[in-house]
């Protein structure tokens, strides 16, 4: 569905130097945004594409959707070259960028849906059938008749998802779809994404800084940093790699102070201490023995690392290598 081979994107930017000469004649510098990346995505897969700010996520998505032209390399999305066949590709993909809306703010969503029908040349009967099906699926029959500006953020996001699904796209590109949403709405959006994948077999390419999105929705994760792919793995496998690392949560019967930690401290609040340990190297009995000297332990629990911690660890290792 998506094939990328040695993809590169370089931007030329002006760098202003000090002084009058620097003001009038700024120096031009090349910045590598995407550095020789390659990967394939199969039909029906849900990919989480993550990385820190400026890692090259959005640039990659924009090259995959035809917004930006590549500097070099090969890209095929749904069998098409996004840069050369942008219009044809637009019929096969749906995009939702967290900060940008495709709905007309002052009109009810239903009016935008009819406009999108004309945009994608969908016959009226077929369009009405699709609207009815999607609106029913997401339970927004009444919401679509209210001007979008009067909707809550969560209702608007669901209306956005219906809007990008009207032309039956084969691939959905979702760039930060849950940005700025509260936990309840995030859950709704995640549920909607999973439903689209299950019911329509839509391939989903998702970027998010909220790693719970990736953990709850995606099958596979691609981690990008500094324009390069540093990990491309099944999420469960990735977590398995870090299986020996655990968060150990120790709860005392009263507040404890002056603890001399030999282990990596994650948090300490009143009577609760959380540390990160590699249980293949340190025995739990050893930890228990050491922590018992600070007070009476009433509970101790070893938890697998959340994905967020795994990815933070990967970033840290890459930074250290640099």
């Amino acid at each position, binding site marked *: 569905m998506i094939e990328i081979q040695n993809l590169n994107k370089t931007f030329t930017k002006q760098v202003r130097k000090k002084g009058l000469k620097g003001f009038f004649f700024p120096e031009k510098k090349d910045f590598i945004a995407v550095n020789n990346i390659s990967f394939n995505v199969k039909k029906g897969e849900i990919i989480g594409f993550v990385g820190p700010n400026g890692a090259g996520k959005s640039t990659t998505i924009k090259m995959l959707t035809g917004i930006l032209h590549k500097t070099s390399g090969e890209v095929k999305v749904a069998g098409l070259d996004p840069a050369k066949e942008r219009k044809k590709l637009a019929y096969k993909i749906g995009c939702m960028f967290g900060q940008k809306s*495709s709905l007309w703010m002052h009109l009810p969503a239903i009016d935008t849906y009819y406009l999108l029908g004309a945009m994608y040349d969908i016959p009226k009967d077929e369009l009405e059938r699709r609207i009815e099906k999607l609106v029913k699926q997401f339970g927004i029959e009444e919401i679509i008749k209210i001007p979008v500006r009067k909707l809550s953020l969560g209702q608007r996001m669901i209306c956005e998802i219906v809007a990008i699904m009207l032309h039956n796209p084969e691939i959905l590109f979702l760039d930060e779809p849950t940005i700025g949403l509260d936990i309840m709405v995030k859950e709704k959006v995640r549920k909607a994404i999973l439903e689209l994948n299950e019911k329509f077999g839509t391939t989903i390419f998702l970027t998010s800084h909220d790693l719970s999105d990736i953990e709850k929705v995606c099958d596979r994760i691609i981690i990008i940093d500094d324009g390069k792919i540093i990990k491309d793995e099944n999420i469960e496998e990735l977590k398995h790699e870090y299986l020996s690392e655990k968060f150990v949560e120790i709860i005392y019967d009263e507040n404890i102070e002056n603890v001399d930690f030999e282990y990596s401290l994650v948090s300490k609040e009143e009577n609760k201490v959380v540390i990160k340990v590699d249980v293949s190297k340190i025995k739990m009995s050893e930890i228990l023995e050491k922590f018992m000297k600070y007070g009476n332990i009433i509970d101790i629990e070893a938890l697998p690392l959340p994905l967020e911690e795994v990815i933070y660890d990967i970033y840290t290792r890459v930074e250290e290598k640099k």
Partner: protein
Amino acid sequence: MLMEAKNTINFIIKSIICNIKIALEYKKSFVMQVIFMMVNNGFFLIFWGVVFGINGGNINGIGMKDIMYLWSIPVISWGAVHFFFGGIKELNTYIISGTLDTYLLQPKNMFFNIATSKCDLAACGDLVYGTILGIIVSDSILDFLMIIVYSIIGLIFLASIMVIVRSLAVWLGDVENIAHVYEQSLFATFTTYPEAIFGKGIKFLMFTVIPAMYAVHFPIRLMEKFDLKIFILVIVVMIIYILIAKYIFSKVLEKYESGNNIAMKG
């Protein structure tokens, strides 16, 4: 090809209908804007009426009918561009803020998609005012139809120069003030005063970089007396302006670098 054109026209109509629906969503504001714009335009005509009253109805061969043409043809063009294709006015903002992304992701013609994305409600006042004046000044239905034809020609000129000037944002950054001066202070002024009052230097501009002669003054001459040569000249120059606008717009799409549209100060 024919199917694509049909689908594009269908899309343009639906998009304009959405804009009209927005106007109706704020009925009171819309009606007030239309009335204020008509009153604003009306003052200019009253002013000219007073001037002609003092000077016996004619100044250097210019009569009230010429002024009425001047406040009909270009005002219809101006109103139609801003009401139906108000998105052109946003082109520079879309370029700077990275909003073109949304349009690049959609399969319809980029220009018409952008152009019909916004509507300047007050411009409906221009459209109505120019049309009423056109009806008043026309001696026959054919006269009125010719006013509409020349207004469409003026619309194409205005839309082309707006695309050209506002596309410069991709190279120059913020061009809002440049565009404002070019469109409102120069083009609007040169098209709403009789050509006889302008000197040679200004006329040179009106024949070249600010095509007011072809967009308005030649059509007014044609309203008074039709001349095929002038008509062909107007059409040829109009096509040249369309091609320049099309070329520059295609360069914008090549040079456009997208963005992350987060509201920032400054």
